[in-house]
C-alpha cells in the first residue's frame, strides 16, 4: 500500500471513530428529539447540503448550516430533547453526496463524517449549556440568535481545524484550497448561525409546523435560484473559455499560450497574496488578453520577420476595436482595462496609468512568449527570460512582479524555455492536438 493511502486510512479511521463515539455516547446519555420534527429539519439539511453552490471562486455556500442551527436552537430550548444529539445525527447525514459515491471516493466522506459529527456535538453541547431551561419570550430572541451565531462560529472553527489537520497530515504542506477564503466565508457562517438561532426560537414561540414549511419554501426557491445562478455563471465562464480555446486553436504556434499566461499570472498573484476575487479578475484578463489578435488581418499574422511601424499601427487599431467591444460587457470591463494594454504603444507608454495587475498580465504574457518557440526564434531559457524582463526600459514589468514569478517557479520546481523544454512542450502540444 502507498504511504499516502496508509495515512488516509489512519485519519479516516480516527475521525470516524471519534464521530461514532460522539453519536453513541449522546444516544445513551441524552434525550432523542421528536422524530417527525427532526426528520423535517434533517431532510431540509440534506437537500441544502446536496445543493451547495459555488458562489464565488472556489467558495461553496450552503444554507445547510442555518438549518443545522435552527434545529440546534429549537431542540436546546425544548425541555424534552438535546441539541447535541439532534445536531450530531443531522451532521452525520451531511457527507453522503451522490458525487462521492459515483466517483467511489471513500476518504473524504468518511473523514468528513467524523469531523462534522464531532464539530456538531461540540456546538450542540454549547447550545444545550447556553439555552436549556430557558423560558423563552420575545425579549430573549436576540439572545438565542447570538447563541446560534456563537455555536456556528464554534462549529466552523472545529471543522476548519480538523480539515486542516487531516490535509496537513495526509498531503504534507499543501494548502487547503477550499478553505483558503475563510475570512470571506466566516461572516456569512456567523450570519447563518444568527439566523438559524432566530428561526429556531421563532419557531418554538409560534409552535406551529406551518412556520417551518413556509421558511423552507422561501429557502428552497432562494436556493434553486442560487444554484441556477451558479450553473449559469459556470455556463457563461465555460462559454468564454471555450471560445478562447476554440479561437486560439487555429494558430498552431500560440496554442496553449492563453492557458499558460493565466497560469503564470495566477502563480504571481498567489505569491503576492492576492485575494480570490483579485486572482479571478487576473485570470479572466489573461484569458481575453489575446482576443484582439483575432481582428488582425491575415497577412500580418502570417508575415515572417518584423513588422513595419505602419503594420504595427494597423495591428493595434484592429486589436483596440475588439477591446472596445469587450469593454461594453459590464463583467469584462475591468478585465479589459487590465489586459487591454497588451498592444501598447511603447513610445507613448504612461507609467502612471499602469497598475500592478496590468503589470502581472504583461509580465506573464511576455515571459511565456520568450520561453516559447515562435516562428521567428527558438525558446529562451527562463533565467535569460528574467534578465530580459528586468532589462526592459519601459517600466511595464514591475521588479516585484518578476521576483514573484521567479520565486513561485522556484517553489514549484518548474522549468520553462530552453532546449529541453522545447521538446517537452512539443510533447504536450502533441497531446493537446490528440485531445482536440
Amino acid at each position, binding site marked *: 500500500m502507498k504511504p499516502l493511502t496508509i495515512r488516509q486510512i489512519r485519519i479516516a479511521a480516527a475521525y470516524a471513530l471519534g464521530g461514532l463515539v460522539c453519536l453513541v455516547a449522546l444516544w445513551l446519555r441524552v434525550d432523542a428529539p421528536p422524530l417527525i420534527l427532526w426528520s423535517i429539519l434533517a431532510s431540509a439539511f440534506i437537500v441544502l447540503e446536496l445543493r451547495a453552490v459555488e*458562489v464565488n471562486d472556489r467558495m461553496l455556500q450552503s*444554507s445547510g448550516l442555518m438549518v443545522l442551527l435552527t434545529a440546534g436552537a429549537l431542540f436546546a430550548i425544548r425541555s424534552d430533547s438535546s441539541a447535541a444529539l439532534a445536531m450530531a445525527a443531522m451532521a452525520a447525514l451531511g457527507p453522503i453526496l451522490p458525487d462521492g459515491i459515483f466517483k467511489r471516493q471513500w476518504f473524504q466522506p468518511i473523514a468528513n463524517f467524523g469531523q462534522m459529527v464531532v464539530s456538531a456535538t461540540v456546538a450542540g453541547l454549547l447550545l444545550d449549556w447556553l439555552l436549556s431551561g430557558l423560558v423563552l419570550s*420575545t425579549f430573549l*430572541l436576540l439572545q438565542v440568535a447570538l447563541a446560534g451565531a456563537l455555536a456556528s462560529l464554534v462549529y466552523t472553527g472545529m471543522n476548519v481545524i480538523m480539515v486542516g489537520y487531516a490535509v496537513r497530515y495526509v498531503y504534507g504542506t499543501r494548502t487547503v484550497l477550499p478553505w483558503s477564503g475563510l475570512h470571506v466565508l466566516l461572516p456569512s457562517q456567523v450570519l447563518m448561525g444568527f439566523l438559524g438561532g*432566530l*428561526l429556531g426560537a*421563532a419557531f418554538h*414561540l*409560534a*409552535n*406551529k*409546523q*406551518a*412556520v417551518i*414549511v*413556509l*421558511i423552507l*419554501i*422561501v*429557502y428552497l*426557491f*432562494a436556493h434553486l*435560484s*442560487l444554484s*441556477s*445562478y451558479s450553473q*449559469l*455563471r459556470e*455556463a*457563461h465562464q*465555460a*462559454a*468564454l*473559455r*471555450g*471560445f478562447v480555446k*476554440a*479561437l486560439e486553436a*487555429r*494558430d498552431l504556434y500560440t496554442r496553449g499560450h492563453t492557458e499558460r499566461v493565466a497560469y503564470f499570472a495566477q502563480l504571481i498573484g498567489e505569491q503576492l497574496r492576492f485575494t480570490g476575487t483579485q486572482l479571478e479578475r487576473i485570470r479572466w484578463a489573461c484569458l481575453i488578453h489575446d*482576443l484582439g489578435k*483575432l*481582428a*488582425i*488581418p*491575415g*497577412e500580418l*499574422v*502570417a508575415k515572417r520577420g518584423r513588422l513595419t511601424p505602419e503594420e504595427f499601427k494597423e495591428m493595434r487599431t*484592429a486589436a483596440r*476595436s*475588439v477591446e*472596445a*467591444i*469587450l469593454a*461594453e*460587457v*459590464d*463583467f*469584462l470591463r475591468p478585465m479589459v482595462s487590465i489586459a487591454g494594454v497588451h498592444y501598447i504603444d511603447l513610445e507613448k507608454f504612461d507609467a502612471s496609468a499602469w497598475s500592478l495587475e496590468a503589470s502581472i498580465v504583461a509580465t506573464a504574457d511576455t515571459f511565456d512568449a520568450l520561453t516559447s518557440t515562435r516562428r521567428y526564434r527558438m525558446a529562451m531559457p527562463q533565467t535569460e527570460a528574467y534578465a530580459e524582463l528586468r532589462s526592459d526600459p519601459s517600466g511595464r514589468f514591475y521588479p516585484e512582479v518578476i521576483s514573484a514569478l521567479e520565486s513561485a517557479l522556484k517553489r514549484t520546481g518548474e522549468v520553462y524555455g530552453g532546449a529541453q523544454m522545447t521538446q517537452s512542450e512539443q510533447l504536450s502540444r502533441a497531446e493537446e492536438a490528440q485531445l482536440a
Partner: protein
Amino acid sequence: MPRKLFSTIAVVGLLVAAPLAGTWALANSQTSMIQAGVAVAAMVLGSLITPSGQSGNRLTLTIAAAAALPFIFLAGDRVDVSGVIGVYLIGSELLVLVEYARSGVLATSFAYAGRQFVGYSIFTLVFALVRDVVGRSLGSSGWEILVPFVAGGVAWIAVELLLWSLAAAGDFRLPTRYVALSGVKDLNVFISLVATGGLFGLMLEPLGWWALPVALLPYSFAHGAFRRFQETKTTYRQTIRALAQIPEVAGLNLTGHSDRTAALAVAMAKDLGLTPEEVEEVEFAALMHDIGHITLNDPTVIEQGWTDDDLARWGSEIIAGAPSLDRVAAHVRRQYEPFRNPGEESDPSVSKAARIVKIASAYDSHRVGSGMSQLEALEELHQGAAYEYDPEVVTSLRRILEAGPVNA
C-alpha cells in the same frame, strides 16, 4: 374592444369608487383605522422593492404585504374579509399613483393596479372560504392555516398568470402562450413573496414585530439570489453579443449584421410560437451564426479558399467549445441547408431555429449587403420559398415586417 372597455372600467372604478368602497368596507369591519393605515403603508412601501424576474411582469414586495393581511385581520376566529378588501382597495388606489410616477402612463398604471387588486381579493376570498369550511377539522398546529393559504395562493397564481399574459400579449403583440410560459418562469419569485407574507402573518401574533426580521431575512437571501441570477443572465447575453461582433470589427462581415439578424430572428421565433427557451436558442444562434467568419483571417484559409459549409462548420466548432451551447452549435451547423431538395421531403433533423436564422440572415444580407428595398428582399425570399427557404418562416417574416419596424 374588450381591453379598452376593461381599462376604462378600471380607470373610473379605481379613481372614484375605490376609496369610497374601501372606506365603507373598513367602516363595516372589525379592523381599527390604525391597523388599516399601517397595512396600506406597507403595501405602498412594498411596491418600492422589486425582485428581479425574467418575464417582465412587475412583481414587488407588495405581494408579500397583501399575502400577510388575511392572517392578521381577524374577527374572532374568522378572516375579516371586509377589512382586508378595504385595505386592498385603498392600497391599490395609492399604487396607481406610485406606478404613474414610475411609468408616466396612467392607463397602464390603472390596469396594473386593478390586475393586482383582483389577484389579492381572489386570494383572500378563497383563503377565508377554505378556512371556514375545512379549518376546524385540521387541528391547531398550523395546518388549519397552511391548507387554506395554499389553496388561496394557487388561485391567486392562476389569476395573476392569466390576467398578466392577456394584458402583456396585447401590449407586446405576442402570442399569449409565449407570454404565459415566460410568466411561469417567475413563479419562484411569486411564491417566495407569498410565502414571506404568510410567514410574517403567522408570526406576528406570537412574536410581535420580531416577525418582521424573521420573515424578511430568509426573503433577503432569496432576493439576492434572484438578482444574481438575472445579472448573470444579462452578462451572458452581453458576452455572446460582444464575441459575435468580433468578425464585424475585423472587417470580415457587415457591421451590425449579427445584431439585426438576431432581432429579426427573435421576432420570427416568437411569432411562430416557440417556447421562451427555444427563442433564447434562436437569439444566440442568430447572434453567432457568422462567428466562423473569424477564420477567414487565417492565412491557410486565405490560401485554400472556403465554402459556406466550411463557415458553418467552423462556426459551430467554435460555439461547441462552450458545452452549454451545444444546441446553439447544432443550429449554426445547419444554417445553410436548403428547406428541401427537388424530389425530396424536407429534412426533419434541421431545426426550426436553423431555418429561422437562415432567413433572417438572408433578409439582412439582401437589405444591407445588396441594398435592396424591403419589398425587393421579400420578393427574393418568396421566390425561394419552395426549395431554399421554409415557407412558413417566410410568411412569418412578412407578417412581422408588415406590422412595423423591428428594433435591434
